[in-house]
């Protein structure tokens, strides 16, 4: 009788079921809420540039397409390490205030200009048949037109953090009254899917500060970004590292704006422990308590820029 029981398959099934029950524990280490640096679509290595469009992630593909639509079809690429080492410059942009969407200071067109192309008439033909034009100090299409793409890419991959943060910037494009409410709703939706995302918490806080001047309300968002990012600094990708640094800066400024001197000093000190060379945090730390009076203007006070507040 005992021989008729298929023990081996039975034990294998029980083992598989137990492993499945415990598998959810692997979710956090396998899929951290922070962006993985290796998935950054704007890498500077030549190989990454070439294979950029073959990313396995369709959201990353949509991201790359979005960049093309912003340039009305002109395909751009980052300068390679060799080009950077040779001191070459990107094409630059005429609208620098859009840096939240992308940065063109180290970008150039994928199709080379005639002077940089060895292919002769074939290069001329490619420039005539592709969407190529001289992009020196170029402008951009309104990112509003790409909003459905951001919606599509975050629907396809809710963990694609850039889709949430950049999508929010696209919603806020042109500073249309009431857009901040939509921005925050979009970012909160992103936080539901990525509750530990440093970049989304930071972006939510910065919308509250920049668009609503809600310094007190933004502090918990920056604190959350610091809570999730601070202990994992080494594991963070470049975007999240920048977001974490920004979170410390904004939080320190917020404490000052609400007159919380102790909070400002504590925040600046905590930030300097992780980013010891941050000159802004250093200046904020050494401001006198007198300067924490809300709204008070003094010559050496660190001000929150009005126009270029995206990158303070």
């Amino acid at each position, binding site marked *: 009788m005992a021989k008729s029981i298929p023990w081996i398959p039975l034990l294998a099934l029980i083992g598989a079921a137990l492993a499945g029950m415990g598998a959810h524990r692997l979710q956090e280490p396998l899929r951290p809420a922070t962006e993985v640096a290796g998935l950054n679509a704007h890498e500077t290595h030549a190989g990454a540039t070439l294979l950029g469009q073959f990313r396995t992630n369709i959201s990353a593909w949509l991201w790359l397409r979005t960049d093309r639509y912003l340039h009305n079809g002109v395909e751009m690429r980052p300068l390679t390490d060799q080009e950077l080492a040779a001191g070459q410059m990107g094409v630059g942009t005429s609208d620098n205030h859009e840096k939240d969407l992308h940065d063109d200071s180290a970008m150039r067109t994928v199709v080379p200009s005639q002077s940089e192309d060895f292919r002769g008439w074939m290069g001329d033909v490619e420039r005539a048949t592709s*969407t190529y034009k001289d992009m020196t100090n170029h402008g951009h299409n309104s990112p509003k037109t790409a909003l459905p793409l951001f919606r599509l890419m975050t629907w396809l991959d809710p963990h694609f953090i850039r889709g949430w943060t950049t999508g929010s910037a696209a919603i806020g494009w042109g500073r249309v009254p009431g857009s901040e409410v939509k921005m925050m709703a979009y970012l909160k939706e992103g936080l539901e899917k990525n509750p530990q995302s440093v970049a989304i918490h930071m972006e939510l806080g910065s919308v509250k500060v920049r668009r609503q001047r809600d310094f007190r309300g933004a502090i918990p968002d920056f604190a959350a970004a610091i809570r999730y990012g601070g202990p994992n600094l080494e594991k963070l990708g470049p975007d999240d590292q920048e977001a974490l640094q920004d979170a410390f800066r904004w939080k320190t400024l917020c404490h000052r704006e609400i007159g919380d001197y102790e909070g400002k000093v504590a925040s600046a000190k905590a930030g300097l422990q992780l980013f010891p060379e941050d000159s802004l945090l250093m200046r904020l730390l050494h401001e006198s308590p007198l300067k924490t009076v809300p709204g008070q203007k003094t010559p050496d006070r660190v001000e929150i820029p009005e126009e270029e507040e995206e990158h303070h």
Partner: protein
Amino acid sequence: MRFFVLKALTRGVVIDSVRRKDLWVVAILGLLILLSASLLGFFGLDGLQSFVKDLATSVLGIFTTIIAVLVSGRMMPDEIKNRTLYPLLARPISRWELLVGKWLGAVAVTWISFGLLLVTTSLALALFRVPFEPVMLQYILLKMIGLAMLCSVTLLMSLLMTPAGACVMSLILAAGTGMIVRAMTMAFEFASPPVQFLFKVLNGLLPQYGLFDVGDRAANSGWGPAPLWVVGALLGYAAVYSLAMLVLSWARFRRQAI
């Protein structure tokens, strides 16, 4: 070269393709396009026009490339394997005529498939009221020329290797040439003179299908058609390159023991 022979051979390839139900596959692909398009409608198409047109031209390009490769990659090996080549060669047909006729047949099947997919795609776009600019006509013309060139390259491959190998190699060339050329343009400045020379030779040898794709101009607004000299240059390039591929195929085929 006799016209009626070429016509009969071309017709044979088309009929064979219909018998194999290749065009049914095209119809199913077309249905997939329509279904995907309806899924896109879920997100609303305001502001997505460029994306939809981009997707449409990309899908058209990918599907027709696959069809062109599969049709032209298996013609000659199948004729040899099924021994249907013997009755053909027993007639007063030269091997050169046979090759050119087969190539024209593959081109005809590919163009018919392209036309069918184009109709399906246009229907899907019309559903969402996405308009195309006149540059789309140039896209169609240049795509057809590029596909003819692709058929000639695959035909040569099919005489040099197994059908599967020929198809894979041809698809790699179709998808990879753009990347290789891009890499060479990026690396040229930093390469040594011998390597630069190698890049120039490689650039001349590789089939530059990408030059025939004005899909990006059709998808994004404000880009007009390419100048007439460009169309002329591409026609000349495709003619010379395809002829070279056919001559190489003939050189291989006439020495091939059957």
